[in-house]
């Protein structure tokens, strides 16, 4: 027992030295000051958030309308808020790493240990707490609206998923204050992350944040799959579903089948660390290759889980803003499905260099390359969608343009990496880093950012400011290009990834270019915040309460913005692909139904937040070996869960009169409003009612 640990039974291995700010006071080097600054930012952010909510007097609203809500729309928004907060940290960490490497010739300002902590949290955060919550948030919001449902199949489970994801994010945040996060990278390969080499709390933070958030994601996957298969409105056959929903079927299948390997790998690592098991240790028959296989058995489907929904967003936006039906709908569906299935067959290409036989490498290499076929088909399908369209260069289309150019380059380097012979050379170098950022930023981030811009007016009733949106998009596009193209070159020069410093002066100029790019990306993040601020300030002139600001084609645009809690006053009868476009053309849209019916909706519950808090304590207790707290919080979760099964009244009824009044009021607004053509789309005349302009334009062929 060390002197600063007065009571092991009470605080486990938590002690005064676990406070991350102390070293900066004792020894104020730049590296420690950066760490302390991050810790302070977390504390100040938390205090600021609490103060802001108090100032708004919004605690009650926060609790009643948000934290305990089972409404898929509110849960979706909370996911996205969580993702944006974490993205701020992830991007800043990326920028700090770029700065370190830019000045990293023979040193730099960070200690190697601090740098390794940064790349570990950066990767973990960006994958699990930015990309995933953004996707799950968008999907949560959009799926029920696109298929004509009132909510997810399992609203309470949805809330628990959010709670567990928030727990994981909270643990990563707390690691800035208490103890240290892992230094083993987001992939956490043992034996480096085993107790022999890393006895501290770092790898434990990684394990528990990943495991808890991973369970949340698995539950989300179950929820999405069941919702899409079972809750579709009458007439919404599978092959009438919007492409975004289709991609979410594929993504949810991946969530259900690919997250378990991660859970298993992380829990086995936990067993090694806590219970002296020997799954991955050096001695007594442990085998680290099993971890590598398990991790990538999750990891590869995971990257498709990220990018496939982004494909879905692009399918929606490109078709909408080209004023055209999506080209090759079934082709896109089959392509997406093949990608989802193939994604399970290629994990070994993450370690061609582990020494297996050439034949094994060949099988996985060819399988990896095969993914390029459906991916290429998708790109061509979107090009054919633009062909003979009427393109409005709104923000989502700027992202789409950037996507076309940059993503294809990422695909090119992906095909290269699928070749074992080339992988032998560029594996583990910055080429690899450049490659996966090249697919994730132009693919996933651009897709999700354009989705955010596209669907924001649906969620809040006003559009985002177009000008600032364009600035953000261009900053992302150029920021990405300047940051990551130099890294390809550095990869060719053999610079390993995860290097805190280097000795070759030839690396420096390229690193400085990359730093410039990183500055642009940080500016993009700033512009994103400014855009939000400006849009809120100007929400009156940006308002689109009638619900259809983009001349949309799918069901979510057929209702008011923001939608009522029950989504559809009467469940729609779907007759076609792009049903709302069809309804508008045939005059079926905006009709008052013959009769309204009572709607049964789920009640609010505090189960999700209770599980979130209890599992955060569980995670911390496990990280610091505070066994009584671990037992208490685990017991709390089980008791809360069982107690919930004894609650019988879980729904409430919204009377038909109330629904009728709301719906009629909105229809009256629609009838009174003036519809606008697409050239007025980004002006304040856009209130969300689109006019049928096709016949007036020249050159139309129907």
């Amino acid at each position, binding site marked *: 027992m060390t002197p600063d640990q007065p009571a092991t039974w009470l605080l486990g291995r938590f002690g005064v030295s676990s406070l991350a700010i102390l070293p900066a006071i004792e020894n104020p080097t730049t590296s420690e000051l950066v760490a302390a600054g991050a810790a302070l930012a977390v504390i100040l952010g938390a205090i600021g958030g609490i103060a802001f909510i108090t100032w708004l007097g919004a605690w009650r609203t926060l609790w009643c309308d948000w934290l305990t809500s089972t409404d898929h729309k509110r849960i979706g928004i909370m996911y996205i808020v969580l993702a944006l907060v974490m993205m701020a940290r992830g991007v800043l960490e990326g920028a700090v790493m770029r700065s370190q490497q830019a000045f990293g010739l023979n040193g730099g300002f960070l200690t190697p240990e601090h740098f390794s902590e940064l790349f570990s949290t950066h990767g973990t955060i960006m994958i699990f707490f930015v990309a995933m919550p953004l996707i799950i948030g968008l999907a949560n919001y959009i799926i029920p609206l696109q298929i004509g449902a009132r909510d997810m199949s399992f609203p309470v489970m949805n809330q628990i998923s959010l709670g567990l994801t928030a727990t994981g994010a909270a643990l990563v945040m707390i690691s800035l204050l208490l103890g240290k996060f892992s230094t083993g990278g987001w992939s956490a390969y043992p034996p480096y992350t085993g107790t022999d080499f890393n006895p501290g709390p770092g790898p434990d933070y990684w394990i528990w944040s990943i495991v808890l958030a991973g369970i949340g994601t698995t539950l989300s996957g179950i929820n999405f799959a069941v919702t899409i298969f079972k809750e579709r409105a009458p007439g919404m056959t599978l092959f009438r579903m919007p492409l975004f929903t289709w991609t979410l079927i594929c993504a949810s299948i991946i969530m259900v089948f690919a997250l378990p390997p991660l859970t298993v790998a992380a829990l086995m690592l936990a067993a090694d660390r806590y219970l002296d*098991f020997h799954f991955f240790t050096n001695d007594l*028959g442990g085998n680290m290759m099993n971890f590598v296989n398990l991790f990538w058995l999750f990891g590869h489907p995971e990257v498709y889980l990220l990018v496939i929904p982004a494909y879905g967003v692009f399918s929606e936006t490109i078709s909408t803003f080209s004023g055209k039906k999506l080209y090759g709908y079934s082709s896109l569906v089959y392509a997406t499905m093949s990608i989802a299935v193939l994604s399970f067959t290629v994990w070994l290409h993450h370690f061609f260099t582990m020494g297996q036989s050439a034949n094994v490498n060949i099988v996985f290499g060819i399988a990896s390359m095969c993914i390029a076929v459906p991916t290429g088909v998708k790109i061509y399908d979107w090009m054919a969608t633009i062909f003979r369209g009427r393109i409005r260069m709104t923000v989502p289309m700027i992202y789409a343009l950037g996507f076309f150019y940059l993503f294809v380059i990422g695909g090119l380097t992906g095909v290269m990496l699928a070749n074992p012979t080339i992988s032998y050379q560029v594996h583990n170098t910055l080429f690899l880093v450049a490659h996966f950022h090249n697919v994730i930023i132009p693919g996933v981030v651009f897709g999700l950012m354009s989705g955010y811009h596209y669907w924001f007016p649906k969620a809040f009733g006003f559009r985002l400011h177009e000008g600032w949106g364009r600035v953000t998009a261009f900053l992302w596009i150029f920021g990405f290009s300047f940051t990551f193209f130099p890294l390809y070159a550095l990869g060719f020069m053999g610079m390993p990834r995860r290097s805190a410093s280097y000795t070759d002066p030839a690396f420096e100029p390229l690193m400085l270019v990359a730093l410039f790019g990183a500055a642009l990306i940080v500016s993009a993040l700033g512009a994103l915040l400014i855009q939000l601020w400006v849009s809120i300030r100007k929400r009156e002139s940006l308002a689109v309460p009638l619900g259809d600001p983009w001349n949309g084609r799918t069901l979510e645009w057929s209702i008011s913005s923001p939608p009522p809690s029950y989504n559809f006053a009467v469940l729609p009868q779907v007759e076609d692909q792009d049903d709302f476009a069809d309804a508008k053309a045939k005059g079926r849209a905006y009709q008052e139904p013959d009769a309204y019916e009572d709607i049964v909706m789920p009640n609010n519950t505090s189960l999700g937040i209770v599980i979130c808090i209890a599992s955060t304590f569980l995670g911390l207790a496990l990280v610091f070996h505070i066994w009584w707290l671990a037992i208490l919080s685990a017991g709390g979760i089980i008791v809360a869960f069982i107690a919930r099964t004894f609650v019988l009244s879980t729904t409430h009824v919204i009377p038909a009169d109330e629904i009728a009044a709301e719906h009629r009021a909105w229809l009256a607004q629609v009838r009174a409003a003036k519809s606008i053509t697409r050239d007025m789309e980004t002006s304040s005349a856009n209130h969300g009612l689109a006019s049928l302009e096709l016949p007036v334009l020249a050159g139309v062929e129907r």
Partner: protein
Amino acid sequence: MKHPILHPGLNLGPHHGEAHEQAETLAFGFWVFLMSDFIIFGLAFATYVTMANPMGLAGGPGPKEAYDLTSVFAQTIILLSSSLSFGMASLAMRFERGRGAVTFWLSVTLLLGLAFLFLEVRDFAHMIDIGAVPSRSGFLSAFWGLVPLHALHVAAGCLWIMIMIIQMRGFGMISLVKTRIVRLGLFWHFLDLIWIGVFTIVYLGGLAS
């Protein structure tokens, strides 16, 4: 037939209609969960198989020293019988033999489950006695990562049965209770299926090699 009977084991209401549709969603969701769980077990099996070699054994106790096939065979019979008794509970529910009959068969299942756990824990204790503990070798880690995981599932199933017996008494045979028993049934039979894997791959396979 407008509303085909989707869950033959269920008797949800006079017309089965909407109640069955809701049950369909719940049951389908549970199936998807089971598939996810199945992957977890599958990977634990795969790890066991990769560890069942001299390197994984690392000179520690192997299947021949650690396993007691008689006890395992008894466990298999008990667990398979518990699936039968659960089937009887489902039939009792389907043909409305009353709460008593369902409770009786669920209690039988519970007792069989507890008997299974008792025998299994006794085997574990024996293994600990002879030093066949997870800290001894990768092979034993894989064993202790897989078989107790199944035992944990069985224990959770037993807890679930107890809760359902209480809820049947408290709430009566309402749809909610019935659909929960249907899902519990899926879970219980699923554990049987996994056990067949454990019996053949872990025990028979281990002893055969």
